[in-house]
Every structure is written in structure tokens, then in C-alpha cells.
């Protein structure tokens, strides 16, 4: 077995009973914020795609994972211990920021659940970004590490209780708060949210070329 793509687990950070962050050795792996990797236990034939959670300049490498009830890989990854080796393929994908826009444009990030991972990486890599993050969750406890975002740029939308900054889905928030048509919009999370947000942004006049999506299947 090749060891070129093996990364050692440094520690595991449990955010909720089912969500956790794996911090691994970086080993010089280069990536662009927004890209994803295929991750599995060393020696296993099973792996899954996960967006990178950490920043481009961090010494380590982090992935945000939610344990899936009927899942195989997420359960295996939840059980790993510091010192264990994990197998990475990648980085892959095109859900990245255009370098020309980073310093000059306004960004809207819309996420559901662990779909917030690439936006966490964006914000860590480019602290000067002019962004607004809408994070849709069921309850406030699922606002994974919201302290990492500037409070005035983070809108937690809770659909299961009234603990968020906005009570309702991200789609409801967008309908009530139209988007400036010059905004670059990045959507990440479940397909139904992305489909609805696409339609809303289209109705609000945001050109399709400014809307980017990473669907979690």
C-alpha cells in the first residue's frame, strides 16, 4: 500500500453528538478553499467525498463530518483515534473563489448543515472577504463553531426552534432579504435547498454565471 496519501489523525473534535471535526497532519498537501477530498481509513476500500474545513494556510488539515445513521464510512471515521492513519485522494473540485473577485466583490454563502465546511475554509483563508453567511440548521446547537465567523456576517437560520438569528429556512430569509444582483453567490448543502435558492436568486435578477453550487448527495 502506498503511504504517499496517508495522513495521521492529530485529534478529533466533537461538535454535537453526531458532528465532528478530524484534524490531520497536512504533509504539504496543497488545496484551494472550497475543494473536496475522498477520505477513508487507511487500507479500506471505502471512502467518501468531504469538503475541506480548514484554511489554505493552516499547518493542519481539517474535515467536518456528520455521522450518517445508515452510513459506513462516517461511522468508521468517528471511531478513529489520534495516531491512526487516514487515506486521502485529492484535492478535487471547482467550488473555489475566483482570485480576481476576492478583494473586490461581495459574496453570499448559503449552507445547510455540514455544507458550511467550504465557507469555513474560505473565511479562514481570506479573512478580509466581504461576505454574508446564511447557515440553515434545525437547532442552534448545530451552528458548528460559529465564533469563527464575524457576528455581523453570520445569520443562523433555525427551522426547528427560535434560537437562531432568523427563525425559518435559508430560503425564507432570502425571500425576505433580496440579494444585490452584483453579489457572487455560493451554495453548499442538500439538493432541495440549492434548487430553491437557485430559483429565488434567478427571480431576484442574479445572473446564473454568478451562482455556484456544491451539492451534498
Amino acid at each position: 500500500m502506498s503511504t504517499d496519501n496517508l495522513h495521521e489523525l492529530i485529534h478529533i473534535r466533537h461538535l454535537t453528538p453526531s458532528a465532528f471535526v478530524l484534524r490531520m497532519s497536512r504533509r504539504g498537501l496543497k488545496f484551494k478553499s472550497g475543494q473536496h477530498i475522498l477520505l477513508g481509513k487507511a487500507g479500506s476500500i471505502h471512502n467518501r467525498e468531504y469538503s475541506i474545513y480548514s484554511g489554505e494556510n493552516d499547518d493542519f488539515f481539517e474535515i467536518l463530518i456528520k455521522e450518517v445513521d445508515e452510513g459506513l464510512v462516517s461511522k468508521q471515521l468517528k471511531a478513529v483515534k489520534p495516531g491512526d492513519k487516514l487515506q486521502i485522494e485529492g484535492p478535487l473540485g471547482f467550488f473555489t473563489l475566483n482570485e480576481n473577485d476576492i478583494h473586490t466583490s461581495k459574496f453570499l454563502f448559503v449552507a445547510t448543515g455540514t455544507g458550511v465546511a467550504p465557507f469555513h475554509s474560505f473565511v479562514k483563508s481570506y479573512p478580509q472577504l466581504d461576505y454574508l453567511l446564511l447557515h440553515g440548521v434545525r437547532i442552534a446547537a448545530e451552528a458548528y463553531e460559529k465564533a469563527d465567523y464575524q457576528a455581523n456576517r453570520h445569520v443562523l437560520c433555525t427551522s426547528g426552534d427560535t434560537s437562531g438569528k432568523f427563525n425559518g429556512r435559508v430560503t425564507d430569509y432570502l425571500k425576505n432579504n433580496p440579494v444585490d444582483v452584483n453579489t457572487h453567490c455560493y451554495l453548499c448543502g442538500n439538493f432541495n435547498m440549492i434548487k430553491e435558492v437557485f430559483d429565488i436568486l434567478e427571480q431576484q435578477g442574479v445572473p446564473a454565471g454568478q451562482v455556484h453550487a456544491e451539492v451534498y448527495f
Partner: protein
Amino acid sequence: MKYHIISLGCQMNQSDTERVRTVMHSMGFAPTEEESEASILGVIACSVRQKAIDKVYSRISKWNRMKNRKSLITFVSGCILPSDREKFLKLFDLVFPMSELPGLPGMINHYGIVTPAGLQTLDAGRQDMQAAVIVSDKVARSILNPVAAMPGGQTLQLNPGKDIDQFWHVEPTYTSGFEAYIPIQNGCDKFCTFCAVPYTRGREVSRPSGEIMDELHQLVEKGFKSITLLGQNVNSYGLDKNGLEVSFTELLHQIGRYGDKSGKEFWVYFTSPHPRDMTDDVIEAIVQYACLAKQIHLPVQSGDEHVLLKMNRKHSMEKYRHIVHTIRRLIPEATLFTDIIVGFTGETDEQFENTRKAMEEFHYNMAYIAQYSVRPGAASSRWEDDVPYEVKKVRFQALTNELTKHSLVYNKSLIGKTLRVLVRGRDRKEGYLSAHTEGRIVVRFASDDASLIGQFADVRIMSAAPLSVEGERVGVMVSQAVD
């Protein structure tokens, strides 16, 4: 001693099989169409549909029963999901990824099988225990493509391993004397939800451009007329090398410049490009060179934005429309082919209607239309296949009607024109030959002259049908080098 190979699936598998044949021939095995005559039975598997994988299980079950009567070696390679690979290990004697093909002689020798090539060595008095290893090394050298020879007469060390480069060094055994595939890339990074290729072939790896050009030169020198560059996403060629390899556009320029200089007549195609990576400069390159065929295969899969999202195609219809407009503007004579899936999970009538409208808008010359079926291992296999079979059939027929309507209009526009065609073989119609134009429109014409097969000819088009045209030969131009 004989071998029999079953190749399932796409052009990539057909191309891979050409290299497997070389390895078999190098060991002294002769091909046979009859399984019962073979000592080695192999299958190049495809995981695109469950049906194809079912065929592999059915075949190995039969072959294992045959083992009760005779000594056989069985192997499987090709597109295999990890879960199937584990099961195949218990059923086949040899299971290996294509990247390990150069090691096949060694694997067979380790089974204690004396190959015909091995017998020659034994006859020559090399009856020591190292004979098998010697044969293996000798065979390994003999399957090397001459393009793998290093400068200064050094021979490249063939070290069977997991490196796809080693596979590309195997010289293919072409099944045609005038049409050939050149693999330029292996694997896929796109993760379309309906497709399992990223899980069977792994990540995108680009073949060195020097090797591609060398293989092209050899084919053209041998008189090949139609050459197709193959890859899962040909136009992302080179991106995996982070600037250390030329781009797909530059590769096309290199081919074009060679074509201009060679004085030979040949057509170079490529398949499949992905709309996401289809840039204007690719189309601009095609315009510039006579050898780059004016035919573009641009898979759309669906004409609906939401379905494209669900398929994880990573491009919009706006982007696709821009590409088609650029093709029409810069290469008005180009023919346009596509792939479409109907009845994808959750596809509504309205979403299907958007696909039908796309066909109306883009006037394809050919569309490979598939009714959606679950691809094991693909992300969409986790979703319910909820469009009823009858609905898929109706949608399939509606798109077929749309295709034939537009292709007939185009084909009728060819009537009265004299077109250059490549004669490919005898037609099903008695006394006719079948050919295709540079744009891959099928042309049939009356002739019994088999010597025309593999040659260019000029045909005046007399009549048109939806998917073919018919004409009269006005002369045969055997292509010659221009001084």
C-alpha cells in the same frame, strides 16, 4: 494455445482491450472467438449498468463450470467497483486493474502455466527454474511500444505496478487498419451523480503528450485515416499535472501542426469533452487545422438546470449554449453530437420538456439517448428510480423524434453536394459500401469494390434519410504523401 476476451462497455474498454491483446500475443497465445477452444478466458468489465456486471457474474459462473473438464485461467480487469472486485477475487484466478496489465505474463507464469513463448525458451534448453521469470521479462520487453524506448537506445524498464503510465507503454493490437483510438487520459474527477467511473477508474491522470504524439505519428505513418483521442473528460487533459504538461488546446495545436506538415490526409476526433472545461480556444484550434475533424461530441445529458444540478454536472445551460453558439459561429460546417439521459431520478414532465426544447434549439446531428437506469456505485443509486419505465419510453421516443426531425433537415441539405468520405466497410444493403463523412454522417454508396475499404473517396449525395445519406462515388482518392 488460445485466448478469448469479452470486452464490455465503452470505447475506453475497447481501446484497453487492444492493449490486452498485445500482451496475450506476446505470450504466444492466439485469439479465438470460441470460448471452448481457449486456455485463457478474460473479461474487460464495465460498471456503467448493473446489466453489464450481471454479464460478468454469469460468464464466470459458466467458466468455472468449464474448469471441471479442462485446465483454464480466468481473469477480469476494466471498470470494476471496489465491492465487485472483492467478490471477483473469489471467482476469477486473476483480478487486476488495467495499470497492472504489463504484469499479466508474470501473473500467469506464477500460476505454473507454461506459455507458448515459454515453451520456446524451454526447447532452447533453458530448463532451469528461472525460465518463467526470463519469459516474463522477455515478454514484458516485447510488448513495449517502441515509443517507450528511451533516448540513446536505452530501453525503458517495464516495472509492472500501479502506474497507469506502464499500461500506456503497451503497444495496442489494432482491430482496424485505418481507424484507431489513442487514450490520452484515464479516470475522472467530475463525480456526476449518475456515473460510477470515478470509483472504478480513479482520478484523472493525463498521459504524457510526447507519447500521445509519438503514437499519433506511428498511426499516420502506417496510413491510419481516423484517429480518436479518448478520455473520460478529454478537455481537462493536463490539468492534473499542475502546469507540467500542455493543455488540451495545446495538444490539439501540436496535432494540427503535425498534420499540416505531414502531407497526409487523416481526421482526428476526440471524445468525450465535458462542457465545464470546453473553452473557446479548443474550438478556435479546431478551426485552424485540416486534420482536426469538424465534428464535436458535447454531452448535454439534460436541458434542465435543476436536473443538471442533481446530476452534479457543474455547468449551466447558459454555459452550454455559449459553447454551441461559438461552435456555430466559428465552424458552421461542424456536426454536433450529444449524450442525453431521460427519466433521471425525479425528472418531471416540465424538466423533460426543457430537454426536448434543448434538442429543438441545438439541432443535433446525432444524440445517444439513454433511458436512466441505476448505475451501481454511483451517487444516484441511493435515490429511488421513480420515473416509471413507460414514461421513460415515451420520453425516449419523443427525443428520438426530435433528433430525426433535425438530422433529416441537415442530411437533406447535403443532397447534390460532393463529400469526402472514409469508406469503413460493407453496408448491410447488398452491393453497397458504408462510409462516413468528416462530420461522421453515415454515407452509403453502390460498390462491390472491397479495396476501397479504409480509403478516402468522394461521393455525390443523392438522397437523405434521418440518420444517413446515400450517394454515388465520383472518384477514389487514395491518399498519398505530398512532396
